């Protein structure tokens, strides 16, 4: 399990890291290898293989973290990095505790992607291309991408933790462009998991159909409405809304700096009782799942909202230690070149009891946001914005026509409290979340959700 660095090396590195004192030291070693390729203009291209190995060493003394990382897994280099991290400290040597190896069970991978011939992956892209282009004569362009990565990690710290994980993820994406006269519209869909190549056993080409269908639908789109109105958000990727407007604000680093609208709200009613939500890093083979986080803490299921009441924040080691809380397995990092920070894993709103059709039927004039191109939030103010990639107008309780170029904009606390229906349908989708210059895979999910009032930014005033 921990073959990246052996126990003796880890012990030496931790001792070197605490040579000038410190409350905590850790070494995180990683070896990764990946392959990406794309198809564009029906030509397989941008075939790229990448590999890296290295280690990051950090020492924490009081409120300060000292960090150094090095390429390669040569024990002498890692020890040198430890010395560099310790260089600015001036205190008495501290002693790390003896390491106790913890056995972890990495998520199961049936078919290692690296063992599948590259040509088979090129074939998969050609299949997507054929399906996507076959969706209609108005599909003017189609591109698709394939990515695989395996990350082996080992982590040891001065409190005796010694653990590891072996993570394999695969993901494909499809983007279609449809054209009719002057109108040009795009559609996209992805499929990914913490799994092996077996993910593609069941009709991966359907994402190409979906991408093309979205682009074709939008050809009939009119301008998006502008102003405040009820908004019904679709299931699955609609969960990015909750990820952005609530999830980030629950990350303990934002809370401790006072840079979250959820400061002081623990135990309070922040949503109607029909809403419960979770962060769950243990969902089997889900895109945002791992056996342990990047500090060696086993991932867990954390209930963040229970029947409208805020029940938990998401911690990494530093933020948990700061307030004497238990870590929640949310200390994640992009690679050995980064410091861990509190991050979501798979975040979702639990299924409710409303039927999506009934939720729409109750809306006189509103907006139906099926999927988003992305979103952004300022956790401190709670202001957020989402680009809608597929959206429709609701008139008289019915979905009437597609809209182009809509944006949803609002404030977290207001929007969360304004959720007045949660659908019984449920779906998880994959995303890549950016924070502190680091990108990590996250899952988002929900059924249909209705928000009583929200600002839709379109061009039709």
């Amino acid at each position: 399990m921990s073959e990246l660095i052996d126990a003796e090396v880890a012990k030496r590195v931790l001792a070197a890291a605490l040579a000038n004192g410190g409350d905590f030291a850790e070494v995180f070693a990683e070896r990764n290898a990946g392959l990406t390729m794309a198809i564009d203009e029906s030509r397989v291209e941008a075939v790229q293989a990448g590999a890296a190995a290295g280690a990051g060493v950090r020492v924490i003394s009081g409120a300060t973290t000292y960090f150094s990382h090095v390429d390669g897994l040569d024990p002498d280099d890692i020890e040198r990095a430890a010395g560099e991290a310790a260089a600015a400290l001036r205190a008495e040597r501290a002693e790390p505790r003896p390491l106790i190896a913890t056995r972890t069970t990495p998520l199961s991978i049936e078919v290692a992607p690296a063992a599948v011939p590259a040509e088979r992956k090129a074939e998969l892209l050609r299949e997507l291309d054929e399906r996507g282009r076959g969706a209609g004569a108005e599909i003017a362009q189609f591109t698709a991408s394939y990515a695989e990565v395996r990350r082996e990690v080992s982590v040891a710290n001065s409190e005796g933790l010694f653990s590891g994980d072996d993570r394999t993820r695969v993901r494909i994406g499809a983007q279609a462009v449809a054209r009719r006269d002057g109108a040009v519209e795009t559609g996209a869909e992805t499929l990914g998991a913490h799994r092996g190549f077996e993910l593609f056993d069941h009709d991966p080409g359907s994402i190409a159909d979906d991408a093309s269908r979205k682009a074709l639908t939008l050809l009939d789109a009119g301008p998006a409405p502008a102003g405040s109105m009820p908004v019904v958000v679709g299931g699955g990727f609609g969960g990015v809304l909750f990820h952005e407007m609530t999830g980030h604000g629950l990350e303990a680093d934002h809370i401790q700096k006072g840079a979250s609208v959820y400061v002081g709200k623990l135990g309070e009613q922040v949503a109607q009782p029909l809403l419960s939500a979770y962060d769950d890093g243990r969902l089997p083979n889900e895109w945002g799942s791992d056996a342990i986080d990047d500090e060696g803490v086993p991932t867990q299921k954390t209930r963040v909202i229970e029947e409208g009441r805020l029940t938990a924040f998401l911690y990494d080691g530093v933020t948990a230690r700061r307030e004497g809380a238990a870590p929640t397995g949310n200390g994640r990092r992009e690679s050995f070149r980064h410091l861990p920070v509190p991050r979501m894993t798979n975040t979702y709103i639990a299924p409710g009891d409303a039927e999506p059709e009934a939720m729409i039927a109750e809306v006189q004039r509103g907006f139906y946001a099926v999927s988003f191109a992305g979103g952004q939030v300022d956790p401190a103010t709670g202001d957020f914005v989402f680009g809608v990639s597929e959206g429709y107008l609701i008139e008289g309780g019915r979905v009437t026509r597609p809209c182009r170029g809509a944006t949803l904009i609002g404030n977290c606390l207001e929007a969360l409290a304004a959720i007045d229906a949660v659908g019984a349908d449920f779906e998880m989708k994959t995303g890549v979340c950016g924070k502190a210059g680091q990108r990590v895979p996250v899952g988002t999910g929900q059924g249909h959700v209705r928000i009583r009032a929200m600002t839709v930014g379109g061009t039709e005033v």
Partner: protein
Amino acid sequence: MIALARRAVEAASAAGASDAEAYAVEDSGREVRVHGGEVESLSAATQRGVGIRAWIGKRVGYAYGTDLSEAGVRALAERAAEAARVADEDEFAGPPDSSAAPPDSSAAAVRLMHADGAKGAPEAAGGLSDPTLGEWSPDRLAELALVIESAALAADSRIAGVEQAVYADSAESVALVSSLGIEGEYSSSSCYGYVQALAEGEEGRETGLGFDLGRGPAALDPAAIGREGAERAAAMIGAGKPRSRTCPVVLDPTVAASFIALIGRGLTASAVQRGRSPFAERLGDEIANQVLALHDDGLDPEGFASAPFDGEGVPRRRTALIESSALHTYLYDTYTANRDDAASTGNASRSGYRSQPSASASNLVVAPGELSFVELLGEADDGVLVTDVAGLHSGVNPVTGVFSVGASGRVIRDGELAEPLREFTIASDLVSMLRAVRAVGADSRWVPFGGSVKTPSLLVGEMTVAGS
């Protein structure tokens, strides 16, 4: 580094590549984060890696790695060749030949060395590097970051705290070698500081960003960074929503830069050739108001993307994109130039050894106008000032340029700044926006978000604002 790159090219040829190119980078970087008067984290790291592009006939593949041992580089070269075998043939694939690059890149190097240095840069600077960078100890850098934070806290009584104050720098050496005889290397350094300040209002917290950048820490004004963050945060207290309507909009330099970076993406030949640009088939057309001139300048000594040569060894240069209302050219790397039967404009860009080159803007520079910021507001008379946008990556259709993005800012009433605004959107499309630019400010600054851009404030005559 150049020896490593040569070794990688030889290994690729031995692995069966008909042509090969290696891009080797060594980078040392430091970062200090402070919070509450204390150092929160201090990071230091050096990384070295190499990326190999291998061509087998008209097929191309790429591999990168950090194992620079003899065996490691050989394995990498083999993976690059394997990747090439998987790719489909592309008649335009191929490396630039050495005629595209002067023997020692001297023309470019001379301008970089003798131009008036970046602000505050030492006289002896080699243009792209601040030789004094190494003299700044981690303690001194922490001091600088703490000054940023304390200046933010002291600037306004309504500042409740600082989310983070950060200093970061990087010094890199790049070497590029190709089997067609291109060889070159250069070094450059860069640093930046920023603060995210928090202001406390009656209806909640507001944030404000302050930043500055340069070749080395001596070029930064830490107190000014802190003040800017504080002023931006405090200015937002009590913000409301604007009335939904169509009106004049002033984009401050940070917001204008985000839009210019997007426009730069649409002006790359790759976006145009693949039908993903609102500027396709518009060469020579009037696409902007005549007050707006836009250049790509890969040689501006202050620009972070400046270098003697681009990501495949072709000299960087200054290219007029929009002048006298007309669209003059697209931005080319070798592949896109082959496809259009044009010449590379030296715009093959990489983000490190992990990425293969692709056509992309270097530094985008909007020519400054005559009007001060205050005069620009006077011109707008009645409208909205936008000081921040969110959701640009999701709110813009790259094919049509149609956008709707989240914004915050201030009301402009009778030519003067009035109450703050938040939670509204601005919507238009990129070409309409360029045509609607009515005046250009004189307040140019470098903005490093989403690209390297230098631009003043812009007055757009008409845009849809959606609020209440």
